[in-house]
């Protein structure tokens, strides 16, 4: 093409292969940019702040890593959490996230760009979401020859709320990088499988190792890849490509995963990892038999061999069961059982059930998080099912399991989102490829195309597709379909933006509300209280609170806590639950023993804030009851009619519990006598509020959301606290009237 005719150049732009690649790169870059920028709502609305609960721990750990170096991080014994047990933090976390931020931090410093570590942590998730979009593009391109499918998948992945929910700026959690690694590992797996390449298999293992280092959800890959292989084998699609890809991935990936201290020997010891090992062994058998079969061509021998393979598989499975029952292999963990039986956790492991994101998903959540993708998803799966190459089987298997898990647990919506995006993009691109073309093929051409399609699809094709359809190539039909889908796409973008800005961008550390005039009002009680703790308490003052706030207290107030969101010690959590659920007299020795200086409770009664401790109280009671069924009884917190009440009708146990007392202490003084109202539960409280003797109020935040109490020292004069408080109030001890019964004698 000559440069003399620029018009020609412009007109032909987009036709050449290289210009298309350039365009594709530009579009991908724009999609990545859109993915990043749509996650910045939280920074613009609020500020550059770490969100929620777990991110605060990750942030704290990252700061430790940056300050002390990698080896100290590895051997980190954290004496400011789980007081007084401490936590071997370096060996009980997934270090991928912190190491990633640490590497970025040091790389930027090496480039003489000093960036605050907090900003790196805040912006890590949006940054990786851009990469996830690209990974989704690559994965989709492996599925279909259509070039537009990949771009659509990247777009969907970039802005789907199901993924944004865990990756807005400030949501510095493991999922922030894990979803990218998940999608990219799948891409490398497909690549390795398609090419039977050891190199791609090794790359897949490498990223699998990174994934293991980053998120406990790596077990999803560990189970999905063997499952895919198993399905392929069952379909009679065993091939050397599969053998090479799988064995490379398994051998290297397992070795890589065992390098993470937290994982250690789990890949060879726990049931969750056994499918991968089993398929590895099974593949060796198959490869051997395959070799034998090629060496000795005999039909009978072949069937015998397949039988042999079956028995070997059965024996292996039996051995696994025996090893499990003998205790060589740890049985399935409770968290795993709760994936199959949604009621399991509530009965056996209340601590898991008490987390809202472990609840089964409500169906509107699917529409909320995926909008139109949720109905495009089955179409895409169906289209892939029609072709059903090896890689399509993967998407089908993934879709099945992903949907199931997403239905069981809210948080697993996250693992479903990538496959939904891929499948929906394939469906969408198929539609657009068909309709979004100005050229109408000549009738016979169309017919032959249809025939070819029909043959390919085999019996699965509908009858009507084999007949020529009048009007499908008519421009009005095209324009209706295309414009309606354009509207759908636009609505999708609108929905995603709306959901992101309204539902997923709140840091939950700072609460936003609207004043009557429509302006935004920030409720900043959490930070107010944590700041108070930071400035007014000793540096080693131990704070007791329910575990939800452990990470925040550690991160924001920098004070040791008894329990936190890393719920590794159920007994310790139950101890705190018992202290909260018992009377002052019973919980005081517990608090003394644990050297508690302050107790922090969250109270939403004044503001109508639903996430407060009284609402979580039953979980504390249940968890404590699990350990001390004789001392804490859930039944005692319900009225005889089975109601959970906090007003005058509340049970005595409820009224005497430390949590109740701390929540409502002095609350009635805010109101005219007899008018005290709990706005959260919408009940009127008794006129006389609870009295505290073993604790004293230390701090109450502006909107009473956080209340902090100081645990009194033992009475200096050896009295019990109740009588000491009575004395301070001016009630003198009465002279003991004539004692009945024998005298109590003092013995030296």
């Amino acid at each position, binding site marked *: 093409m000559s440069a003399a005719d620029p018009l020609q150049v412009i007109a032909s732009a987009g036709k050449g292969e290289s210009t298309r690649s350039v365009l594709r790169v530009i579009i991908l870059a724009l999609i990545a940019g859109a993915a990043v920028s749509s996650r910045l709502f939280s920074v613009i609305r609020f500020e550059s702040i770490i969100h929620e609960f777990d991110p605060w721990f990750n942030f704290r750990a990252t700061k430790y890593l940056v300050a002390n170096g990698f*080896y100290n991080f*590895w*051997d980190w*014994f954290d*004496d400011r959490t789980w*007081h*007084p*047990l*401490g936590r*071997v933090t370096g*060996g009980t976390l997934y270090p991928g996230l912190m190491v990633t931020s640490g590497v970025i931090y040091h790389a930027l410093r090496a480039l003489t760009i000093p960036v605050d570590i907090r900003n790196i942590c805040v912006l890590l998730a949006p940054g990786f979401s851009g990469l996830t979009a690209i990974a989704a593009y690559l994965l989709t391109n492996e599925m279909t020859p259509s070039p537009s499918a990949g771009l659509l998948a990247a777009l969907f992945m970039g802005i789907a709320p199901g993924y944004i929910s865990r990756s807005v700026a400030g949501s510095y959690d493991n999922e922030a990088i894990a979803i990218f690694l998940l999608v990219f590992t799948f891409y490398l797996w497909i690549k390795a499988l398609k090419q039977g390449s050891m190199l791609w298999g090794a790359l897949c293992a490498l990223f699998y190792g990174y994934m293991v280092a980053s998120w406990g959800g790596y077990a999803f890959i560990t189970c999905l890849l063997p499952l895919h292989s198993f399905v392929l084998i069952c379909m009679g699609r065993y091939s050397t490509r599969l053998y090479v890809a799988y064995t490379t991935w398994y051998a290297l990936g397992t070795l890589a995963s065992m390098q993470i*201290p937290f994982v250690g020997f789990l890949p060879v010891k726990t049931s969750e990892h056994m499918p991968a090992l089993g398929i590895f062994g099974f593949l060796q058998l198959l490869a051997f038999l395959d070799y034998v079969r090629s060496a000795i061509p005999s039909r009978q021998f072949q069937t015998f061999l397949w039988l042999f393979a079956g028995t070997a598989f059965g024996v292996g499975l039996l051995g696994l069961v025996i090893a499990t029952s003998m205790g060589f292999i740890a049985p399935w963990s409770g968290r795993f059982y709760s994936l199959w039986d949604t009621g399991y956790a509530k009965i056996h492991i209340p601590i898991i059930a008490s987390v809202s994101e472990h609840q089964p998903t409500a169906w509107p959540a699917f529409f909320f998080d995926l909008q139109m993708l949720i109905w495009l998803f089955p179409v895409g799966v169906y289209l892939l099912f029609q072709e059903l190459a090896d890689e399509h089987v993967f998407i089908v298997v993934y879709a099945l399991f992903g949907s199931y898990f997403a239905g069981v647990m809210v948080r697993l919506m996250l693992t479903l989102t990538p496959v939904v995006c891929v499948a929906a993009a394939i469906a969408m691109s198929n539609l657009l490829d068909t309709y979004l073309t100005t050229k109408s093929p000549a009738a016979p051409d169309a017919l032959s195309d249809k025939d070819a399609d029909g043959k390919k699809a085999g019996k699965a094709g509908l009858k009507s597709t084999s007949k020529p359809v009048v009007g499908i190539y008519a421009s009005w039909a095209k324009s209706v379909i295309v414009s309606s889908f354009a509207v759908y796409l636009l609505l999708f973008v609108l929905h995603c933006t709306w959901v992101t800005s309204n539902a997923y961008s709140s840091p939950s550390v700072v609460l936003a509300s609207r004043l009557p005039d429509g302006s935004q009002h920030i409720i900043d009680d959490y930070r107010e209280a944590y700041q108070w703790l930071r400035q007014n308490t000793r540096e*080693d003052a131990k704070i007791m609170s329910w575990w939800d706030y452990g990470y925040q207290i550690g991160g924001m107030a920098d004070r040791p806590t008894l329990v936190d969101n890393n719920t590794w010690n159920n007994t310790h959590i139950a101890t705190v639950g018992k202290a909260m659920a018992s009377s002052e007299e019973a919980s005081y020795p517990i608090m003394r*023993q*644990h050297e508690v200086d302050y107790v922090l409770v969250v109270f939403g009664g004044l503001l109508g804030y639903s996430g407060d401790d009284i609402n979580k109280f039953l979980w504390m009671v249940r968890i404590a009851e699990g350990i001390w069924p004789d001392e804490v009884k859930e039944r005692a917190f319900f009225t005889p009619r089975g109601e959970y009440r906090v007003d005058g009708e509340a049970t005595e146990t409820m009224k005497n519990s430390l949590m109740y007392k701390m929540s409502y202490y002095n609350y009635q003084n805010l109101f005219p006598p007899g008018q005290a109202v709990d706005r959260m539960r919408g009940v009127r409280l008794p006129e006389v509020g609870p009295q505290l003797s073993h604790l004293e109020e230390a701090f109450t935040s502006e909107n009473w959301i956080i209340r902090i109490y100081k645990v009194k020292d*033992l*009475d*200096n*004069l*050896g*009295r019990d606290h109740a*009588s000491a408080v009575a*004395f*301070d109030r*001016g009630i*003198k*001890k009465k*002279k*003991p009237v*004539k004692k009945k019964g024998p*005298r*109590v*004698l*003092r013995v*030296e």
Partner: protein
Amino acid sequence: MRLSLSFIAALFTAAVSAVSTTGNRLLVVLEEDADKQIYSKFLGDLKSRGFDLSFESPKSESLSLFHLGERSYDHIIFFPTKMKGLGPNLTPNILVDFLNAKGNILVTLHSNVAAPTSLVSLLAELDIQLPADRTGLVVDHFNYAADNSSAKAHDVLLLPPPRPARSDVKDFFSTGAGEDDVLAFPRGVGATLGASALLNPVVRAPETAYSYNPKDQVGALTADDLFAAGTQLSLVSAFQARNSARLTLVGAAEMLQDTWFDAEVTASAGGKKKTINREFAKRLSGWTFQELGVLRTNWIEHRLDEPEDPRNNETNPKIYRIKNNVKYTISLSEYSWDSWTAFTVPDNDDIQLEFTMLSPYHRVPLSWDTTRSSDSAAAYTAYFRLPDQHGIFNFRLNYKRPFLSNIDEKNTVSVRHIAHNEWPRSFVISGAWPWIAGVAVTVAGWLAFCLVWMYSAPAKKGVKGEKKTQ
């Protein structure tokens, strides 16, 4: 460390001139100035020991125990007053605050004078019960002063010197007293003590003594009406709060009067005896006003006891590793009248160190460390091995004994797990050798296989060629 030592030395020089460890401002609560004469020897003794006495009547409006939140006095003596209460400046709550602010109180009672309600409430808070107003008089028909005006009433008790009830308690109140000496306890009130661990009787009534109301219990006394009898009656009682503030209750104010100081009395059993009231009053007030039995922690040091470890020289490290050997040393002094001396643990008693997390993992006795002790300070040391459990532990020394001020020292340290590079390497462990050998054999086998594979193919041609040439 050196700095803090010199600071302590500076404190030492300051302490020598002071009389009591907590200050010398002594408030004497008296109703009438004439009473000063009755107690002149006792008060003179106090003055000569360096106390700065101020006299106030409870009626005085200017009397205030606190000024701007700080104690105005360090110690108080209450002599019997005729007042029913003690006025708004000496309410029980103020007195409790005074104790909480480490002030010391000496309370004296008299059987003819009603105890002020304020003091009765205060004592009730401490679990000390008194008989109702003017109804308690302690008498003993076997041990009384016979030559007295009240020889008939048997209300002047003659008691042996008050020795400690248990062998492991230091004797503070009767050292130096001869066996024949007696302590006169005239017209006093006995109290009963509750089970509080902070209370200790200093002088207990003889087994033959009892308390009765001379007005309406003259004829007969039923068991139900009896307030208390025998050793359950505490004539002089000591209370030491958790912050080591002290309160002493003397049942008979008269025993501090001049008349009973170094007096000659005729015992009911016969023979003239000398009273040790003066010496006892000195010791009792000395104990109450923190001149006796005051313990002080000079310093605490804990360190690794592992010569090979590079961190062995670090004093008071914040973090240890499990199964480290550690050494703990504490330096203790005891104040005796005007100087700090080395504290020696009484015979039959032990000073123990606990290493605790939730509950003690170790409880080890400390032994005298001669190399680090001096005349004024005694060092006690313990060696032990940390438990195989990581966590946040306390070195806890909780030494609370009757009449000695409380020592409750807590030093928090973290005990970490074994770091990744502190384990023995695999080649050191003999049990790992088969596996290491297995790895080596596999590597060697693989290399050998590769070599064979690479060099076996051309060999065929060579064989052929050889055959051809042959």
